[in-house]
């Protein structure tokens, strides 16, 4: 029986990394991710469970909690929950027990590509890519938006550190957009 080897969204056997001037753009593949949507009337209960999992308050509207297990808000009573791939590859099975039917969990791990971007002046870099109010997207905030017609999440963990999560099929186009924007620096 053949052995199946994984590839990254950009098609590499190991995550791809680019350095463009002062910017580092790195493919991140070691996270498993699941959507967590509260069942009817279970919003508060699910927030309590998330708080327990994250060991910090569950993200409010537009919020992002970084950490060993992380979560960001994606909609009304809906979050993405992410954890180390090696430990949580079957992330839905890993967390189904603790949510006890109070939330619907759906595996999202391979639906997305994820790029970590570090460097100066990320507000201006991101302003070339999308129309969200970057000055309002401070550390601990997340927003869904459109980058070059690609629906993405933008997460901010620090002034000089952000993550862009986009659909896996468009990884090449999204990477090209970020790379091109970074090449425009200094703005």
């Amino acid at each position, binding site marked *: 029986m*053949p*052995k199946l080897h*994984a590839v990254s969204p950009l098609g590499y056997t190991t995550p791809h990394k680019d350095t463009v001037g002062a910017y580092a753009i790195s493919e991140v593949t070691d996270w498993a991710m699941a959507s967590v949507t509260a069942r009817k009337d279970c919003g508060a209960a699910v927030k309590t469970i998330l708080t327990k999992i994250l060991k910090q308050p569950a993200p409010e509207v537009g919020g992002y909690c970084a950490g060993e297990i992380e979560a960001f808000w994606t909609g009304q009573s809906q979050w993405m929950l992410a954890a180390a791939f090696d430990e949580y590859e079957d992330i839905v099975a890993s967390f189904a027990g603790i949510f006890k039917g109070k939330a619907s969990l*759906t595996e*999202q791990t391979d639906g997305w590509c994820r790029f970590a971007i570090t460097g100066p002046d990320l507000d201006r870099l991101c302003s070339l890519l999308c129309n969200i109010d970057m000055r309002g997207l401070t550390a601990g905030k997340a927003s869904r938006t459109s980058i070059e017609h690609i629906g993405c999440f933008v997460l901010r963990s620090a002034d000089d550190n952000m993550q862009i999560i986009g659909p896996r099929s468009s990884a090449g186009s999204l990477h090209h957009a970020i790379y091109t924007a970074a090449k425009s620096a200094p703005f």
Partner: protein
Amino acid sequence: MLAGAMRAYANRWATAVGDRIAIFANNDDAHRTAHDLHQLGVEIAAVIDSRPEAPKSDNFEVLAASEVVNTHGRLGINSIDVKTPQGLRQIQVSALGVSGGWNPNIHLTCHQRGRPEWDAALSAFVPSSDLPKALYVAGAANGKMTTAAAMQDAVTTAMKIAKDCGLKPKSLAVPKTSDESASVTPFWYVTGTERGWVDQQNDVTVKDIKLAHQENFRSVEHLKRYTTLGMATDQGKTSNVLGLAIMAHTAGQSIRETGTTIYRPPYSPTAIGVLAGRSRDMDFRPIRKTPSHKWAEEQGAVFVEVGMWYRAQWFPRAGETHWRQSVDREVETTRASVGVCDVTTLGKIDVQGADAAAFLNKIYCNGFAKLDVGKTRYGLMLREDGIAMDDGAAARLAEDHFVVTTTTANAVGVYRHMEFARQVLWPDMDVQLISTTESWAQYAVAGPNARNLLRKIVDATFDISNEAFPFMACGAITVCGGVRARLFRISFSGELAYEIAVPSRYGDAMIRALVAAGEDFGGCAYGTEALGVMRIEKGHAAGNELNGTTTALNLGMGRMVSTQKDSIGAVLSRRDGLTGDDALKLVGLKPCRTSDPVPAGSHLMTKGSPIDAKHDQGYVTSACYSPTLGHHIAIGFLKSGDQRLGEIVRLVSPLTNIEHDVEVVSAHFVDPEGDKLRA
């Protein structure tokens, strides 16, 4: 050219547009142009002023109460004919500047449909007094045409804005400026000439405007569209008022009664490239690649764009010189043994919650409440107006968990529609939705050897025999030694077939594993063309049939629309107009002479009837060469088609000069009883 342009060239860019210039005007400001040019050393041949009381000059000749009635020269101007009270005069010139006075820049005040008002004293349109909230206009834009008046207006308006903001402004001194004359007397066009140019960009003449009037295109909006007046890049800045005045004069009414068109952005002509930015060529829009893309490229696949997706159309092999050879081989191989096709692009929506089944009952016209866990069912989704919207398969993974597929093209729209139903129509249902299209790499494995192929991939702990995993079964499995996967026994090709899904990161490895496993059976990969051929042979509807005009009844699925429940579109699908005896029905078509094609888009006519729209009986939606049958086949819609099997009808395509006989047959060309599916 415009006199104001001559002045700008001279004052701003030190450029003289000619060495001997005449100016034809009806206002004092044009005399300033002549004065400026003279000061800069340009010879002024004459200023021709239509007004009897024109200002005099010591520096150049002014011809009062005069008009330019003709020009001479080719690719340039040599001389002009001037009608003066003393008679006709010819004047040698190298350029003629014309000036009709200034119009206020009222464009911004029109962007929210403000209607400019005619100011008779100014002979121009000024901003409407009914301005949008928080919009103030001052200066020349507000009809204050001299510097001093503009300064005064600016101060007055600033005070008003401050007061409206709740402030108590100190009074401001108005800066002192010279108050040059801006006197103007309307003069709209020269009579008695053959052609008088009105719109210099679009070459609209006085004659054109009179013709518009004669043809009854008299409203300003009609005048504009009939003549193209004001539709060039200057958007009528230099010609609109002139044109309206001529129309008013011709119609014997005032300019106020005639009215004006209004403006939309942009004010300045904007190059499309500025708007496009980096969105050009291959960067025009993103590309979506399937998990097998890299492998398909290595095989030399020919790709087709489906929305943003790139899908492999066919996989040419050595010696194949025509696409049909590749496609025919892929179909024949699949039907004879086994074929593998990437179907990842189909939309997948995860539906969970205590009311998940009840929700799908609302969304699909057919029933889902009684679907067993571990089973898949075909679902047809209607728009609320009763027209078919999309179709797919819904697999029940648990009592409260389904995964629904949509067509590639409609994935986004169907998700939006389902969210609308969930949030707006039935907000208290316990149902949660999320797209999982890209999480899974999904491959169809079709053909008599499909199960044999999968036995080499699926871990032995899972029994995929016909008894344990029958037609329409679904379930979670593992493959290749423990990789999580989902298996669905569904078939688009009409063969014994499965769709197998693995997390996308394994998609590249999976296609290689499936194709390698298939080689033992002489199998191959197939692309979207072979997929299309096989679904036409099987008579399955696809986008060409779900074309936004067809109902379940037309598609031969009328009885699927349940009357036992309230699903979207069910009520309006039963309207009289959609359910007549002569309603279109999906049929198969085969040529009477086997060498004839049956091209999509052709129309169907009863034999012997006239060939015209009135006698139209239907049309061909999907067509292909069937390697299985050895001739062309098609499916399409025919009035009362289900009752006309065996009838010979006329296939016509006047556009391509095709006209021949075809036989109406069942749309299920291959395996009509479905024995292969269940094998």
